[in-house]
């Protein structure tokens, strides 16, 4: 029997396991966001347009993810946006009515209405003045919901197109609020530099709401992420322009407090959900390590490498990571190997790899359901960094995870379907809006809990 148990609101302030019987769809989203549990109805895939493939435009692809639907595992809607922007990441608003998606090259931000008809999203608004309004930010990357607002990290700036950057804050209507620049050696903005670096680079953001802590990581600027991957690897100067820092912020004040050395380009940040677990993880792309960012016994935030990912000397290039809802497991994708690894992080200071599987010839993003039983993978990293020729597989794949192995369920081939390069995946559900999925044979809401948690 199909179970579709929905809870709105959850998060990170109190021990979740003792409070919530069901949780969110993804385990890596903002703690302030409305959450679904149980079976997601759709996966929205922000997709890069590719020359010679379909209409060659960036697009939002909707895949039916409900096994009770006749169109399960197939593309049910394609919404092109009229050009190519280096489509990359996307994020849901706190009420999940809208999906924000960015173009790293054109700096455009596309806001899709996914609540009026979850099966058929529409383009609600396009923000075209991101760089002007923010005072020079380039490359809108992470879209992270705050109450009534969206925090948008950037990767670059419009002066030198390097890695110096910041974050822009918008309200849910898409109106600019403020810019928060990363601290640098020349302007620490009140932060303490704890090590060798204060590069001012940016990438991802996550909030430990129960601790009033925000963490940001660091990647590289427009001049690198738009460069051909092979050419960049041969360019010694370009290879020096990668981030080596993470920043600990006072969330409420949006004030940078401490600059941590995390050499090797720390990318995705995933924080423990249990408030008693006062730490987050990241992986370093260039040095292939898992790093723990944690509060020590003296209340000081520290960073340390806690595990290797594969053989770092072979440069597996770890990309996306995903923490389980019980804080005990971490998925780690390595782009060049096309491989997903699962780490036991019960001891966060000593993660242990317990499983690995090759998913494809290349791999980037991973999204799992809250119960961890469904794990979705996608293929594209960046338009100019994806593999070439036959190795340039583009897909979204669903696997079921039983705690010991991944069991393949379906693949959507994004080239065969004329779509493009599959990047970020976000989940949708009718139940979030008080609706019943009209396309399922057993449509039924079994239980609804009002405001069932913290957010």
């Amino acid at each position, binding site marked *: 029997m199909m179970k579709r148990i*929905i809870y*709105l*609101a959850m*998060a*990170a*302030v*109190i*021990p979740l396991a*003792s*409070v919530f019987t069901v949780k969110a769809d993804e385990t890596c989203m903002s*703690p*302030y966001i*409305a959450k679904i549990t149980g079976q997601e109805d759709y996966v929205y895939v922000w997709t890069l347009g590719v020359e010679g493939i379909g209409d060659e435009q960036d697009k939002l692809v909707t895949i039916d993810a409900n096994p009770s639907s006749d169109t399960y595992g197939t593309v049910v809607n394609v919404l092109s946006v009229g050009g190519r922007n280096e489509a990359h990441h996307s994020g849901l608003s*706190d*009420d999940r*009515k809208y999906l924000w998606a960015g173009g790293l090259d054109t700096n455009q931000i596309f806001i899709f209405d996914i609540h009026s008809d979850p099966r058929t999203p529409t383009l609600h608004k396009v923000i075209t003045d991101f760089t002007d309004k923010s005072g020079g930010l380039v490359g809108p990357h992470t879209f992270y919901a*705050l*109450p*009534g*607002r969206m925090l948008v990290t950037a990767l670059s700036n419009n002066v030198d197109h390097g890695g110096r950057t910041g974050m822009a*804050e918008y*309200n*849910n*209507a898409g*109106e600019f*609020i*403020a810019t928060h620049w990363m601290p640098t050696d020349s302007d620490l903005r009140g932060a303490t530099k704890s090590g060798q670096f204060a590069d001012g680079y940016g990438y991802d953001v996550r909030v430990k*709401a*129960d*601790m*009033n802590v925000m963490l940001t990581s660091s990647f590289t600027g427009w001049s690198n992420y738009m460069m051909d991957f092979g050419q960049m690897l041969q360019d010694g100067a370009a290879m020096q322009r990668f981030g080596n820092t993470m920043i600990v912020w*006072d969330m*409420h*004040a*949006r*004030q940078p407090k401490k600059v941590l050395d995390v050499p090797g380009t720390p990318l995705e940040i995933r924080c423990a959900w249990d*408030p008693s677990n006062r730490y987050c993880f990241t992986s370093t792309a260039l040095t292939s390590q898992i790093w723990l960012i944690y509060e020590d016994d003296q209340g000081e935030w520290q960073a340390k490498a806690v595990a290797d990912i594969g053989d770092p000397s072979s440069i597996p290039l770890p990309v996306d990571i995903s923490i389980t809802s019980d804080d005990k497991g971490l998925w780690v994708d390595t782009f060049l190997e096309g491989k997903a690894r699962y780490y036991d992080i019960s001891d966060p200071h000593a993660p242990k790899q317990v499983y690995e599987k090759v998913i494809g010839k290349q791999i980037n993003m991973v999204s799992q359901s809250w119960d961890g039983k469904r794990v979705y993978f996608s293929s594209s990293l960046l338009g100019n960094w994806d593999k070439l020729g036959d190795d340039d597989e583009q897909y979204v794949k669903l696997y079921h995870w039983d705690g010991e192995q991944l069991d393949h369920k379906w693949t959507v081939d994004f080239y065969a379907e004329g779509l493009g390069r599959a990047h970020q995946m976000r989940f949708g559900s009718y*139940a979030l*809006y*008080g*609706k*019943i999925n009209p396309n399922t044979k057993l*449509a*039924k*809401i079994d239980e*609804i*809990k*009002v*405001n*069932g*948690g*913290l*957010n």
Partner: protein
Amino acid sequence: MKSVRVRQILLVFVLSLSCTAALVHSASRGPGWGELSYEPPAAGTYQLPVIMSATNGVVLKDDHSTANLFDLMSDRIVFLSFIFTRCSDVNGCPLANAVLYKVQSRINQRPELAKDVALLSISFDPEFDTPEIISALKKSFQRGVVDWEFLTTDNQSNLQPILDGYGQFAVRPHDEHGVQMDEYVHLLRVYLIDKKRHVRNIYSVSFLHPDILMNDLETLLLESQLE
């Protein structure tokens, strides 16, 4: 009909009592029920940029009179919450009421602040939350010199523009038979509005705490002194 109203009002008092009880049993609840686990930034040491303009609307007061929200805000800093009395989640509307109750208590201890502050709690369940119900709620919570108004609306058409304006997400889902359920699914949100009717903060469960609200209030008061 009268007995129904009596039962409804009794329910409000029960909810009020459960709210008080929840203050005691604060483990595994939102931080607003107890002590913050961190020191929030001090008042005046940070900025609260304008998020959006506040929204006006026609509301019903507990004495059945109608009023404009902006008139009720007057020239004051406002904490605005959206609630409904049938809300049973301890981290939902009861938390909003409890935190604003604590804010009210602190302002009562500093009565010089009272003229600059208003608390407004609007029901998004006008079908159940009649003026009689919100009047009972007001009697349960309003204390001292602080102006804390509990409000409802005539109907959904008056309410919806207010909810839309503030972005307060609240829906009444349907069951499998297509019947609309009594409960609302909503995200708890409380809004801080300055004297110029700009929204300056939007609180969720995870940081809806009287220490934070008071610091934000004082930050805006310090800001207005500098203007």
